[in-house]
């Protein structure tokens, strides 16, 4: 199926595709098998941990055992001199004056936190690196770390999101008046509506909390830095989502010109946001490699990841909503706290999450009066990093719990309440109350279809039966059934107009792609983002195929290397299919023109009489293959016309969507759960997603992204939580403490697609990478609360663990 910009609305494809690999075409819309699979299935991928260089040293870090304190002394035994390094070594004149990592924003009132690569005077979270030690092996480096002693003056730790901003809280950055990076606010028609709201028949207030999580890609972060003498360049091999951004940040810290640095990401074992930042350990390794002229490697182990990288998702909301008797929401007021951790990370800053809370809280709903204040709170925890879905997972949970509360208070069906408040298709394109430009789509229809797919009537019947049983049988025998929904829209591929206002170190603009036809007529395309599971080696090749008719197997996608690719802000924000995809299309179209120029000459046809088809230039009479054209240009230039384009078959072209405010994919999720009141155990019985990602470049890959995101959302809903004790000690250092959903915890998930093309993108595609992770906590939480409604229990804290449910049930006086 080639995908024109026409309307495909209503052309559903259910996730259960026929086996990929035998599509009628191999271009846009085909479930092409992944090109990256073969090497990975043979164990021949190349991840950072698989690489080594001669003379390589391995780094281990002495990490702060305390969450907050002043460093009084660091004792390093004499025999470790030259292989144990501190902040003083790096930042001092002898070390070249390495600068702190600075991620400012242009937002008024933002407080700047400088993050030293190694802790300077203070430590601000447990796990913060203090001393770097190098040895021949990681094991030996860990041995040596044990010989280091650091003397601290301990300070009270801010472990709680609200406590950190309470009067008298110890200041984390002592030149600040309070532990707040930024206060974000919005007020739209709220004060003006005050009297009307006060008179509203329905008013509900809720407190919602989401836990601090750890992204936990299966491969930890890792890097190897080495100085390449022959090009006089520092090369940083690193498991990153954004090599070009890392290069800029590293150059700033090390005081090097960017031409002196190359950043390369090999195979990367999952990212989800954790690999979308410049990391202190990267700065340390790069510095040490330059100083020692030895390759320096660091691999984040799981313990380090759980302790020092538990860095996302932690929100706290207090919200009030007003509605009329029909459940039409009249106004929303919220005060939110986002636990942003100790430092502002490069490049996203400490405030992205809080600001997104303010701008996204109304979600897909048309809410006429709105007020929200969000504090980006500084705490003694690892710095917050945007995790798949970013603030929207918390926001969706918050607003969907509120919608459900409104329905309950008004005595209305929650689906009907949603339908009365969702932005309607005839309103599209729609500017939301916070200024988000929803591009296209039928949000209510996705919900109606989800209700149909989940089989609401049958679920309700089953629910009644379970409740009847609960009244008669011992409660331990009775599981209660619940049904819950959630709807969201997901802004992706944000452009300049969205990001310039933040004033953070990175503003996405144009995206480029390099295209090079090789002498044998195959194609290399070079993009500056990075594929680490998103299947771009396949999907971008499909786009090339769409334009040039060249089989994806004959297209190489080169990515993740600053030396080989055009600048890009990288892979984040559900942007690659739109931005890199658009750039690949532009470059291939430009390549087509070059090919047509030579091809027309070889065919002795007028240029405007030839076209591209199936890797050939086709003229009125006959055709010439790309292979022949490429051969001619590179190896038989004598056969070119005199006015041949000297640029040949190697070019860079750029792309930007016609409107750069982002694509808005959306979905409705519906979950059926069974809850055992006696134990708090929850089983997800059924899970349905009706989503609209516009035109799907590879439906198999899209479904894979949704399934994967949903599993992460289920983790948020039920399992994943980094708890801290009152001294800021993280209480999970293994996967036995921090629980990721396994195969046994994943329910059957059914997906249906609506395909409303985006009017603003090259093929009508929308960013969909994050969506799956956004709605599950809301849908599952609503289902749990539906199941327990008869017992007088409503849980609004994620994850909704058995213990939390039992606490609520015990508090509500439920037997036993």
């Amino acid at each position, binding site marked *: 199926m080639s995908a024109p910009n026409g309307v495909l609305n209503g052309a559903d494809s259910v996730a259960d595709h026929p086996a990929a690999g035998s599509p009628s075409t191999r271009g846009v819309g085909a479930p092409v098998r992944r090109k990256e699979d073969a090497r990975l299935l*043979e164990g021949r991928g190349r991840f950072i941990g698989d690489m080594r260089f001669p003379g390589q040293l391995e780094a281990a870090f002495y990490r702060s055992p305390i969450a907050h304190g002043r460093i009084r*002394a660091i004792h390093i035994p004499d025999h470790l001199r030259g292989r144990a390094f501190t902040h003083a070594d790096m930042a001092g004149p002898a070390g070249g004056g390495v600068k702190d990592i600075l991620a400012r924003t242009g937002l008024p009132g933002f407080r700047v936190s400088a993050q030293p690569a190694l802790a300077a005077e203070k430590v601000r979270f*447990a796990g913060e690196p203090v001393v770097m030690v190098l040895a021949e092996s990681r*094991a030996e480096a860990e041995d040596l770390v*044990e010989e280091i002693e650091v003397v601290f003056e301990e300070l009270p730790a801010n472990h709680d999101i609200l406590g950190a901003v309470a009067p008298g809280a110890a200041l984390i950055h002592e030149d600040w008046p309070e532990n707040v990076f930024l206060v974000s606010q919005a007020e739209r028609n709220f004060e003006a509506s005050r009297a009307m709201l006060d008179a509203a028949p329905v008013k509900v207030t809720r407190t919602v909390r989401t836990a601090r999580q750890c992204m936990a890609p*299966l491969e930890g972060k890792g890097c190897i830095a080495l100085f390449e003498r022959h090009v006089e360049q520092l090369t940083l091999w690193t498991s990153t989502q954004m090599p070009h951004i890392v290069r800029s940040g590293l150059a700033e810290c090390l005081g090097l010109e960017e031409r002196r640095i190359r950043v390369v990401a090999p195979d990367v074992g999952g990212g*989800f946001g954790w690999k979308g930042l410049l990391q202190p350990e990267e700065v340390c390794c790069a510095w040490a490699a330059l100083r020692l002229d030895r390759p320096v490697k660091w691999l984040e182990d799981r313990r380090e990841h759980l302790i020092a990288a538990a860095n996302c998702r932690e929100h706290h909301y207090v919200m009030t909503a007003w509605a009329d008797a029909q459940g039409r929401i009249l106004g929303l007021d919220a005060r939110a706290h986002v636990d942003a951790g100790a430092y502002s990370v490069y490049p996203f800053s400490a405030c992205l999450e809080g600001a997104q809370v303010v701008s996204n809280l109304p979600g897909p709903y048309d809410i006429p009066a709105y007020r929200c204040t969000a504090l980006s709170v500084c705490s003694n925890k690892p710095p917050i990093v945007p995790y798949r879905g970013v603030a929207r997972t918390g926001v969706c949970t918050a607003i969907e719990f509120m919608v459900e509360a409104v329905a309950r208070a008004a005595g209305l069906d929650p689906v009907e309440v949603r339908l009365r408040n969702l932005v309607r298709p005839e309103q599209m394109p729609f500017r939301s109350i916070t200024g988000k430009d929803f591009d296209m789509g039928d949000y209510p229809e996705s919900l109606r279809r989800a209700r149909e797919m989940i089989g609401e009537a049958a679920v309700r019947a089953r629910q009644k039966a379970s409740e009847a049983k609960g009244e008669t049988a011992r409660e331990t025998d009775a599981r209660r059934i619940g049904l819950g929904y959630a709807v969201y829209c997901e802004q992706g591929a944000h452009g300049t107009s969205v990001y310039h206002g933040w004033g953070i170190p990175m503003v996405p603009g144009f995206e480029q792609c390099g295209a090079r036809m090789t002498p044998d007529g195959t194609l290399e395309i070079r993009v500056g983002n990075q594929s680490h599971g998103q299947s771009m080696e396949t999907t971008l090749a499909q786009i090339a195929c769409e334009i040039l008719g060249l089989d994806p197997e004959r297209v190489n996608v080169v990515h993740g290397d600053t030396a080989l690719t055009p600048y890009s802000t990288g892979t984040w924000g559900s942007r690659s299919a739109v931005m890199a995809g658009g750039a690949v299309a532009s470059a291939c179209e430009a390549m087509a023109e070059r090919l047509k120029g030579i091809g027309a000459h070889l065919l002795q046809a007028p240029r405007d009489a030839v076209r591209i088809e199936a890797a050939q230039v086709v003229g009125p009479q006959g055709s010439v293959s790309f292979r022949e054209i490429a051969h001619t240009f590179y190896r038989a230039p004598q056969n070119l016309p005199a006015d041949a384009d000297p640029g040949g078959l190697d070019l860079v072209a750029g792309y930007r969507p016609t409107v750069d405010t982002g694509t808005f994919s959306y979905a409705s999720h519906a979950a059926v759960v069974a809850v055992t009141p006696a134990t708090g155990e929850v089983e997800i019985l059924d899970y349905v997603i009706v989503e609209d990602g516009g035109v799907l470049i590879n439906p198999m890959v899209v479904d894979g992204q949704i399934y994967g995101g949903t599993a992460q959302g289920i983790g948020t809903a039920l399992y994943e939580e980094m708890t801290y004790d009152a001294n800021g*000690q993280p209480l999970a250092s*293994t996967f036995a403490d921090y629980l990721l959903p396994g195969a046994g915890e994943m329910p059957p998930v059914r997906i249906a697609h609506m395909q409303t093309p985006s009017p603003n993108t090259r093929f009508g595609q929308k960013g969909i990478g994050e969506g799956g992770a956004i709605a599950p906590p809301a849908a599952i939480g609503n289902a749990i609360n539906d199941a327990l409604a008869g017992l007088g229990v409503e849980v609004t804290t994620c994850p909704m663990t058995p213990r939390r449910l039992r606490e609520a049930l015990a508090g509500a006086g439920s037997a036993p």
Partner: protein
Amino acid sequence: MSLVNLTVNGRAISANIEPRQHLGDFLRENLLLTATHLGCEHGVCGACTVLIDGAPARSCIAFPAALEGARITTLEGLADDPVAAELREAFTVEHGLQCGFCTPGMLMMARDIVLRRPGAGEEAIRHELAGNLCRCTGYVGIVRAVESVAARHAGAAPVVTRGTEVAPSAFVSPLTLPVAGTLVSKQAQDAVTPKAAPAASADISFETLHNPVRMTQHFEVPAPLGEVWNVFQQPEKVVACLPGARLTAPTDGRSFEAEMGVKLGPMAATFRGAGTIMADEATLSGIIRGQGVDGRSASRVRAELTYRLAPLQDGSATAVAVEIAYELKGPLAQMSRGTIARDLAGRLTEIFAANLAAALTGVPAASKPAALDGGALFLAMLKGFFLRLFRRG
């Protein structure tokens, strides 16, 4: 170093291996077989799964030194295994991988499932795959892939892979075989010089505890108040009542240096540090403060023991009220099963009380303060005393 003989992917390997090197590292670092991935190094995620004598096992918690004679098969060694080939095809058809990091371990486990449970259905497969984490796919494609291959084998005789042989690859590619012998571990360095005692007292100041765990305990000692009071003024006696604790320097009666070893199962820590004793005879109360560091893990504990004495009845016995407040920080604190620490603390406290009573009455305590085997961990101690937290009294 141990000389170990193994068969890896059909090739005999003899190597001198440090006992502490785990199999995953040995395969990857020494033999350059990097298909085996390390995702957690504590046996949970399954990315490092290999076959040991035919059966799936975690290579991150197996040690080659203990595997003399074992036959190891990595994903490289299944290059032309027919079931592995079916699985690879199914994984790509069903989109069973994204980043690919968990994939080698998944394939290892999937092969075992197909052989051991031919025809296994979705639920059984989900259960069998529970020990292999994937963060990308939501397991949907993985489960479908395994299910499709298992279905093709339905009706076949189950092959229990425990202890079975895996045929080496017929076509031997350089990637299949380990790089033999060229990269055996170098001689381990001599043990590192023992760490000097912590830079100690000079660096120690006794600050208030910020957010301690508090526990109180009351017990009676069959001795007159004066005797009990005297014991509390003598660090050497107090410390002697604490299992695993001892003074490390002579004390002046006001301050002391001590260490305390705590063991819990296989875990052990030794906290070294210093403390002070303050007493107010007027109120028959006092406070003992201490703090210490387990140098190897950099874990640290600070604790205060506040005691209050009261004479009982005819004065032949004394009521002791103790409040323990402690903060444990660092790696030993960073785990979720905190109630275990309290359990340990409770048992330490009981022994402390028994020892104290015994010391005061001259009757040997029922259980002698050997370093509370079994217990150790976290909590610990400090310098001196007891800290231990009791459970609520």
